[in-house]
């Protein structure tokens, strides 16, 4: 991105006032970027912004409360920051947001489906919407639009929810877009038995590593999660699919009206279980019931923390 030099300069300028600035740097191989915790000018030099920078760095913010933190954030990431502020889980005055225009994102599962095992990729480069991937066997030219994570295709973010500094290239278009939620539509076209079998099948793979929980910017109970307590005994220590499924419902319900659909749960899942769909469904229903979208308005009250004596959109059953 052309703005990266300008961004680095701004971070260098601000660094003396901050304890740390979180951004991305190149990871262990060509296709992986990794969160970077910058405290020195040398570390700022390593900063990268490209479609491989997939982590939502807002997830680190509650853990850094009390420190002066700078964060490099795409538009959708600022939605998570907005929600954290809404819930007073972080302090605005401790935070400096370096908002970058999103260069698009690569879903590594989709990339793997296209080019095979990612462990053999020698290089990957981006030129507008073209993605060129080299492995020892072949060179592939792909369309970034086809590699976008599902989350980039259900909501378009042109502007950040909040920003202290904004970095945009003049010729840059918004990559994410609002289309039909194909995953959810596909699921809802199945009959009930098929949906039950779908979840039972997928969730059976779960290894209970809780990457989905720990990566979630809104999962702020951290070490006090009810999934881990023995009393009350919400979950048993067994690894049958009921425990795994119940955990997903615990997570989804605790995120109801709070989830910012950043998709980190699904991205983090090492077993590639499509768990974001459950959160999306709840968000759709919340939007329909309460006309509410989480994280977009720092002053709004989340819908499950309030009520109306007469709920206009809830039709109660007559007996």
């Amino acid at each position: 991105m052309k703005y990266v030099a300008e961004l680095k300069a701004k971070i260098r300028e601000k660094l003396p006032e901050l304890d740390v600035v979180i951004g991305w740097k190149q990871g262990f191989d060509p296709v992986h970027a990794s969160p970077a915790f910058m405290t020195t000018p040398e570390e700022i030099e390593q900063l990268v912004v490209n479609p491989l920078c997939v982590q939502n760095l807002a997830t680190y913010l509650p853990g850094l409360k009390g420190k002066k933190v700078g964060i490099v954030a795409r538009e959708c990431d600022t939605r998570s920051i907005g929600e954290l502020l809404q819930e007073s889980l972080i302090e605005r005055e401790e935070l400096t947001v370096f908002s970058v225009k999103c260069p698009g994102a690569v879903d590594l599962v989709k990339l793997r489906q296209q080019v095979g095992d990612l462990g053999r990729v020698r290089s990957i480069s981006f030129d507008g919407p073209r993605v060129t991937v080299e492995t020892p066997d072949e060179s592939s030219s792909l369309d970034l639009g086809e590699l976008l994570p599902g989350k980039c295709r259900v909501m378009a973010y042109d502007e950040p929810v909040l920003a202290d500094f904004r970095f945009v290239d003049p010729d840059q278009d918004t990559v994410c877009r609002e289309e039909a939620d194909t995953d959810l539509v596909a699921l809802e076209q199945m009959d009930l038995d098929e949906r039950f079998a779908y979840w039972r099948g997928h969730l059976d793979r779960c290894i209970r590593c809780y990457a989905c929980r720990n990566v979630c910017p809104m999962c702020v109970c951290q070490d006090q999660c009810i999934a881990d307590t023995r009393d009350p005994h919400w979950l048993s220590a067994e690894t049958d699919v009921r425990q795994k499924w119940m955990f997903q419902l615990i997570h989804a319900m605790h995120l109801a009206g709070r989830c910012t659909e950043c998709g980190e749960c699904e991205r983090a899942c090492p077993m590639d279980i499509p768990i974001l769909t459950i959160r999306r469904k709840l968000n759709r229903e919340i939007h329909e019931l309460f006309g509410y979208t989480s994280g977009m308005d720092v002053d709004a009250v989340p819908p499950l923390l309030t009520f109306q004596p007469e709920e206009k959109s809830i039709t109660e059953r007559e007996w």
Partner: protein
Amino acid sequence: MSAGNGRELRIVGFLCNWCSYGGADTAGVSRLGQPTDLRIIRLPCTGRMDPLFMFKALLSGADGVLVSGCHPRDCHYSEGNFYARRRLELAKRLLPTLGFDSGRFEYTWVSASEGKRWQQVVTAFTEQIHTLGPGPKFSH
């Protein structure tokens, strides 16, 4: 007396202590006949009703879940049932995505004096669950 073909199904009822629990009592004292598929768990308020109780019950093999509390504006704690209504409506709407018929779960309001209404609710809900049949199970 069980609804339907005589085979009992497993229905879990979460009832508010201040109203529906009393309503069920009223129905009993008045000798109003009711199907016996329901097992009642008493709550201090429907505001205590974590929607996860419902999911946990269904995933543990319950065939239906019923929540009953005080009528809106009648909550013993003023507003517990107002919060509950939002949560429970939302949870109900999630059920089909998971492969459960949304009819396996209902929430409603029955006061302590409404023995007759309680009888109607239990009978109608039990019939509804019998129409749906046993819920999805995890046996492999």
